[in-house]
């Protein structure tokens, strides 16, 4: 009797356990709409636009075997608030939006000028979104950028990221910290973020899979062009690619730099920076005003040289000097422009804010103290590699 009761109880327990929620959070890959790239825009009247580029797994597979199904689809939505889109999406997309793995975030320039505060707050409150995602500012229409196929990579987001990485690594004309994370981090203390600008080359998007059948690599492809300066989530200006590279050098973030030095008529040399330069940065108070002294110490490689005679240490010294002058000139011009436009490019404001002690109290209270700062930047390069050419070929330049 008791045994039967016990068996019955066990059976009951098992039966009640069966309908328990087990995997309510399960995600079936076939039911997900994997978002690869997101674009956001805002019209003048406040209507918000969002674009989701969604990967089509079948398309990715079939396009490898020569089929012409699209590997990606772009969906566009309109709404009054950012939070609306996730629910709006299900009205057109037959799958559940899966946003946590997207590659790039495209923000229109006009939205950036209005301010990104609302958007950033919304993004940060979503636990599934990675904030360490690359962010780009679209020059021109976001729609065009979202609606183009790119060569070599199946997903435009991936390609955009690779282009950005390569630019940062090889030419130094992109800031690695062009990420949503940086925008959020810099939001409170007013330091600047440098977000890469992208535009479409040729101006026209290439929006059919015919893209994969043409040889024109450039057409409708992305181009990085300098960076926008974002302060507290708002666009305040932009830097040309060369200016960005100069700035990154002073900040010690630059990894690559190639400089053409003209020695005299018909004689020139190319110097390449080898590693990230060492930066010596000292902020002090001079007569109550902050003074910043930055010394940049790049290590250079002599890539090529076209000058008469054997390369000797005198020549190398001269090249170093010319290189220093060139860069100091460029840095000076950039800082002068920044001063006129009131950009705190070197982050002096933040550095002052981190100082302690009563001497700094006055400067800390004044949010514009950095504008009075006396900035001097000097470059001290040294050539540590001379390449495989020991003596340049004099050749045609001989009389």
């Amino acid at each position, binding site marked *: 009797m008791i045994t039967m009761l016990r068996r019955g109880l066990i059976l009951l327990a098992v039966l009640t356990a069966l309908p328990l929620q087990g995997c309510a959070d399960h995600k079936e890959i076939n039911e997900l709409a994997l978002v690869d790239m997101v674009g956001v825009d805002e019209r003048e009247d406040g209507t918000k636009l969002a674009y989701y580029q969604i990967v089509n797994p079948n398309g990715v597979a079939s396009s490898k075997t020569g089929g012409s199904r699209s590997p990606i689809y772009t969906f566009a939505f309109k709404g009054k608030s950012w939070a609306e889109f996730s629910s709006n999406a299900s009205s057109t997309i037959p799958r559940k939006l899966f946003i946590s793995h997207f590659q790039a975030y495209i923000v229109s320039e006009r939205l950036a000028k209005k301010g990104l505060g609302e958007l950033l707050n919304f993004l940060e409150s979503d636990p599934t979104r990675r904030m360490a995602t690359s962010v780009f500012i679209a020059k021109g229409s976001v729609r065009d950028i979202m609606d183009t196929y790119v060569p070599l990579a199946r997903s435009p987001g991936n390609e955009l990221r690779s282009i950005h990485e390569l630019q940062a690594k090889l030419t130094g004309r992109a800031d690695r910290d062009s990420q949503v994370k940086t925008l959020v981090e810099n939001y409170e203390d007013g330091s600047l973020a440098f977000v890469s600008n992208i535009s479409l080359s040729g101006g026209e998007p290439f929006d059919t899979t015919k893209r994969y059948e043409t040889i024109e690599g450039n057409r409708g492809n992305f181009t990085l062009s300098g960076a926008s300066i974002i302060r507290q989530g708002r666009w305040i200006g932009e830097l040309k690619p060369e200016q960005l590279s100069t700035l990154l050098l002073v900040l010690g973030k630059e990894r690559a730099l190639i400089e053409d030095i003209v020695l005299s008529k018909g004689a020139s040399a190319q110097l390449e920076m080898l590693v990230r330069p060492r930066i010596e940065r000292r902020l002090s108070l001079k007569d109550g005003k902050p003074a910043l002294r930055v010394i940049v110490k790049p290590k250079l490689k002599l890539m090529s040289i076209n000058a008469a005679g*054997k*390369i*000797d*240490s005198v020549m190398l010294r001269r090249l170093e000097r010319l290189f220093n002058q060139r860069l100091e000139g460029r840095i000076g011009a950039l800082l002068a422009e920044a001063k006129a436009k009131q950009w705190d490019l070197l982050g002096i404001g933040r550095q002052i804010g981190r100082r302690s002690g009563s001497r700094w109290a006055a400067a800390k209270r004044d949010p514009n103290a950095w504008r009075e700062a006396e900035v001097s930047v000097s470059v001290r390069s040294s050539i540590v*590699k001379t390449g*495989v050419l*020991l003596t340049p070929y004099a050749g045609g330049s001989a009389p």
Partner: protein
Amino acid sequence: MNDTTVTMRQFHIIVVFTTLSTAFFLLPSSLIADAKQHAWLVPLWTGAAGIASTLPWIYLARRHARLNLMQINERILGRPFGKLANLMLLFHMVIVCAWVLNNLDDFMTTTLMQQTKEWVFDAAFLFTALYAAQKGITAIARTAELFAPMLIAMFSVFFVLAVHSWDWSQFAPAAEFDWSGILRKPSYMIAFPFMDGFMFVMIFPYIKEKAGANYVKCAAAGALLLSLITFIVTGVLGVSRAPHVTFPLFVMAQELMISSFLEHMEATIAILWFALVFVKLSFTFYCAITGIAQTCGMRSGGLIAVPLAILIVGFAQSMHRNLIENLEWLARYLLPYYSLNTLALPLLLIAVDLIRRRRAA
């Protein structure tokens, strides 16, 4: 330690390899720049002068058979002064190690692996040398012996193939001698690589017979080979091209075309060169650690080998700002510095020795 011996053949190979090692990769282009088509004469006369200047040490080694460099110093000069002299020689050995590594990492980072950090090469290479030196001179000698046939065969094939693009007109005009280019400018070659030869006195006790005479014979062979290599470089790359490139042999290997699918031999040649560099490095390092151990009265050099290696890797990275300064330094300071250890010191020792003997008699 007493039963270790180095056979005659091993000794020959070590001497030739250490003479060639870094010199034959670095020197030809500066030699050709200075002496033009007569560059091949330079290794001959500098070799003669360099080997002649190691004779005082060899004389000392013969008078004090069964003693090595450090022991000779202490025997003749007494303990305190002997140790001082030993320190000078040890400093020389350490700097040669650092130099060899520096040349090696310079080569690697300018040609084959441009992105890699220099200390990685230094550390990896010196680690191997350290292991070899710990195993003793026999291990180094046997390694050299093992590598020898391979190296000889590969380099012969390489040079024979390179001779395809030989051009006799590179040697014209043969008559015009630029004496300053042949004699004065490349005179540093007396020092590097030939004056380093005094280090072999460290292993003379392990050699059964006539170490000195054999050393002279093999160093001379090394000089001949260097001359031959310079001759080939001149003939293949030409007087107008060779001085421009830092590593002429590397360029030769790059441009060598055995057939349309077998070209770009530079990595292979570089690896062969590493074998030569390895012999010189491990030998010099071995000398340095045994020298330190003897000077400080330790049983073996094993204890200080690793810290010494760390120190050398540190020095190797800061030898020069760049290759150009390295070459300028060599031309200016190398001969005076080397003469101190290779000529002045042994002559002093001989003088002291003679005076002592006379007093005793």
